[in-house]
């Protein structure tokens, strides 16, 4: 295993403000001090190594510097200071279908796009049938792409990209395109690429994709690299930090609150037991939901659903159902300790009429993290399982 990408104190600054007469004057007379003040550091002193065959995830909020990092790595722009050293051919997919020309046919565009991505003509020709088969637009390959549906367009574009065979592949969010079936196909192809021993850098907002494809992940926060390590650890750290920002939601009046058909949420809150300021796997906690009913007398109840960040539903639980007049209604769902495994969860709340008609559902009402706790254990590896209930589990000598 050798280092194939070496990033050394990489920084990139942009000049703030518009270009105009003053920037022209600065160019002429080199007013250095003034420009120093107007600098914005999109990336500052980032250093990391990527080993041969490693699949590295890059996560961070919008504006954290992910795109800037990719642009520097793929040579679209050059750094303000620091350096990047790369071994082998690099292909970067910051977008699918770069350079597609609407007037040209699918066939012509495959060749053009392939060449833009750095493939030789002969290389494209030898993979042409495979590319077309993968895209599933065989019938329209000799039609100008301006007549394509957007789905076909994206499929053809991704098919070209998927058949690149560089030593280093840089990918930005291309999975966010196409329908569910095609996305699955893309993820499969990505996994194949990753397993094929190629080095891949993968930037995404899709934590599930990053976690399942990348062993290691780096976290960028306002231009600096704040964490690098196993994807599981970095992602849950990152999410828990963002969780703190959304530990409850409140609305002042029904007019500005989310809702429909005469029901509006007032608040959704996480309730911790006395003395606790976070939830671990043994902590019982509550989910308190307040809402306004303005639809007159009717039978209402609440449903609470708990999801993992990957979108799997852990449970779905239903409250009592009562007849209510107009006014504020409160429901508390008590979740016992020793039920959930550690991880980050998201709660969906649903208001139901007559135990059958859904009036309004609020997704991501709260996101929170359940921390790990192992008091009587000396083992600290990954604890598998979607839930972690404490069972009666005896053990004795019988003869």
């Amino acid at each position, binding site marked *: 295993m*050798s*280092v194939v990408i*070496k990033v050394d104190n990489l920084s990139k600054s*942009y*000049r703030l403000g518009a*270009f105009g007469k003053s*920037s*022209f004057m600065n*160019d002429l007379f080199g007013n250095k001090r003034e420009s120093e003040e107007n600098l914005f550091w999109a990336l500052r002193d980032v250093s990391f190594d990527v080993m041969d065959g490693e699949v590295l995830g890059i996560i961070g909020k919008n504006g954290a510097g992910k795109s800037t990092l990719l*642009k*520097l*790595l*793929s*040579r*679209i*722009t*050059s*750094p*303000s*200071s*620091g*350096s*990047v*050293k*790369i*071994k*082998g*051919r*690099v292909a*970067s997919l*910051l*977008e699918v279908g*770069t*350079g597609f*020309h609407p*007037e*040209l046919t699918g066939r*012509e565009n495959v*060749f*053009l796009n392939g*060449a*833009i*991505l*750095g493939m*030789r*003509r002969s290389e494209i020709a030898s993979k042409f049938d495979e590319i077309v088969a993968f895209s599933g637009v065989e019938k329209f390959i000799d039609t*100008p792409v301006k007549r394509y549906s957007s789905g076909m367009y994206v499929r053809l574009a991704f098919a070209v990209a998927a058949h690149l065979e560089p030593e280093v592949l840089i990918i930005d969010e291309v999975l966010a395109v196409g329908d569910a079936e095609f996305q699955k196909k893309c993820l499969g192809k990505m996994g194949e690429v990753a397993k094929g021993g190629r080095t891949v850098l993968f930037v995404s907002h899709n934590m599930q994709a990053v976690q399942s494809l990348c062993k290691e992940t780096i976290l960028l926060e306002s231009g600096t690299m704040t964490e690098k390590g196993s994807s599981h650890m970095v992602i849950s750290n990152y999410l828990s930090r963002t969780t703190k920002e959304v530990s409850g939601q409140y609305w002042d009046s029904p007019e500005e609150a989310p809702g429909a058909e005469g029901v509006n949420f007032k608040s959704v809150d996480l309730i911790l037991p006395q003395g606790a300021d976070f939830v671990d796997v043994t902590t019982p906690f509550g989910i308190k939901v307040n809402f306004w009913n303005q639809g007159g007398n009717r039978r209402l109840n609440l449903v609470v659903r708990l999801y993992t960040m990957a979108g799997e539903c852990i449970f779905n639980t239903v409250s009592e159902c009562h007849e209510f007049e107009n006014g504020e209604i409160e429901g508390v769902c008590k979740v016992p300790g020793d039920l959930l495994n550690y991880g980050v969860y998201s709660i969906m709340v649903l208001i139901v009429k007559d135990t059958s008609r859904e009036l309004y559902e609020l997704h991501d009402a709260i996101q929170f993290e359940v921390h790990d706790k192992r008091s009587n254990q000396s083992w600290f590896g990954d604890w598998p399982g979607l839930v972690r209930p404490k069972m009666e589990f005896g053990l004795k000598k019988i003869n």
Partner: protein
Amino acid sequence: MATEENQSSNWTTVITPQRHLFDIDLKGIWHYRDLIWLFVKRDFASIYKQTILGPLWYFARPLMVAITYTLFGAIAGIETDGVPRVLFNLAGVVMWSYFATCLTSTSNSFVANMHIFGKVYFPRLVIPISVIISNLVSFSLQLLLFSGFLGYYMLFTDSGVHFTQYALLFPILVLMMAAFGLGLGLIVSALSSKYRDLIYLVTFGTQLFMFATPVIYPISMIPERFHWVVYLNPMTAVIEGFRVGFLGNSSFNVEMLAYSGGVIALILVLGVIVFNKIEKSFVDTI
């Protein structure tokens, strides 16, 4: 420390803020030669898709221009050194329009391809080079038009039009025009990535430049004491060289051509250097 230095010699790509002035990625351009060819094909195919006359439009433009100047020349009484007026103007216009389109389309390289440049890396010189080549397609079609007229005048009239040995210089003249258009275009495109004003100036400037070049008038019309101004212009030798080769009559000598070649080479080198310097960061400024 020693091992690290050994390792660093195998890096294929090293990205740093500073780049050497003459560090031009010729190897990269060679690797992307297929892309150059595909861009040429794209330009050719896309322009005339959904037109009925297709490439015939290549003929129409220079012909219109030449006819306009011919009428204008006849009214203004411009001398043509004894060459039929239409032929004289067509020769000038066809040659000039190749240079002019090379210049204007290269100066647009950064701005017109901003979208592609912002998403993927390939040696940026690929674009201007492909533009020069795809303009060659229209140029050769226009030459065909010119040779039609030339053939007519040589065979069916008593105009005294004839080839001279200078016709053999033709490939060199084309190369010079391409190099000059490319060089100037690169300089303009590099500067216009920041100051968009230049793009508007270029079309206007090219037009003015044409009137400063003996395209629609012969050098003999210029008063003797201003000749040095005309000879200072590197395009003069190109246009005059073409006329002397194919029409047999003009003021041309090899020293003029050598001088032009020198100036053009200098401008091309300057253009490539400036372009190369700007290309790595233009995405931020555009």
